[in-house]
């Protein structure tokens, strides 16, 4: 449950790049609470694939511009 996720995200940068969109604005756009946006941004919650796509759509970018997964080291 508390195993840290390896997924990282660029939510904060994207919010600032899109006219300083607030966490509350983003939350309204994707239909979640502001606290959930904060949890995603801080890596404390991994959203569902559907929510991830909704977030990417708000910023008009591909999913991998929002969420990243590190390459496996050989």
């Amino acid at each position: 449950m508390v195993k840290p996720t390896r997924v990282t995200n660029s939510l904060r940068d994207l919010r600032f790049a899109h006219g300083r969109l607030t966490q509350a604005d983003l939350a309204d756009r994707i239909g979640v609470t502001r606290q959930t946006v904060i949890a995603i941004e801080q890596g404390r919650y991994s959203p569902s694939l559907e929510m991830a796509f909704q977030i990417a759509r708000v910023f008009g970018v591909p999913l991998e511009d929002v969420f990243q997964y590190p390459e496996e080291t050989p």
Partner: protein
Amino acid sequence: MMSTLFYLDEVTHEEKRAWILGIAATASYAVYLVVVLGRAGGRPPAEVPYVATLLWTVGASIVASIVLSILAAVISKDGGKDQRDQEIGRFGEHIGHSVVIIGAVAALLLAMAEAPHFWIANAVYLAFTLSAILDSTARIFAYRRGFQPW
């Protein structure tokens, strides 16, 4: 006071409910124990009257939880339940459910052993209380420390 208000604004309604349910369950069980054990004197516990106290403390706990949840929602103008709340809620219920099963098995064994009703009722009440506390603790932990359902 300000930090409390700040905290109220920073957590979701469902996290506040987890706190309220956990505290109400703990407080009501503590009151029950104090009253029943206080009555015991030198008697064996199974002879102590407990039914009315048990019903009153359970009733008070339910009423207090409902009233405090409504108050918290009104004061901090909380939003609804989102996907994360639902997932964390299910996780908490899953954790709490295991204790209810342990309590049911304990009650079954006590009944088969023809133990006094006092012990059977108290095994079930303890299981419900521990279940509520574990459920709330797991939810709060998931909200505070992080929750990765995948």
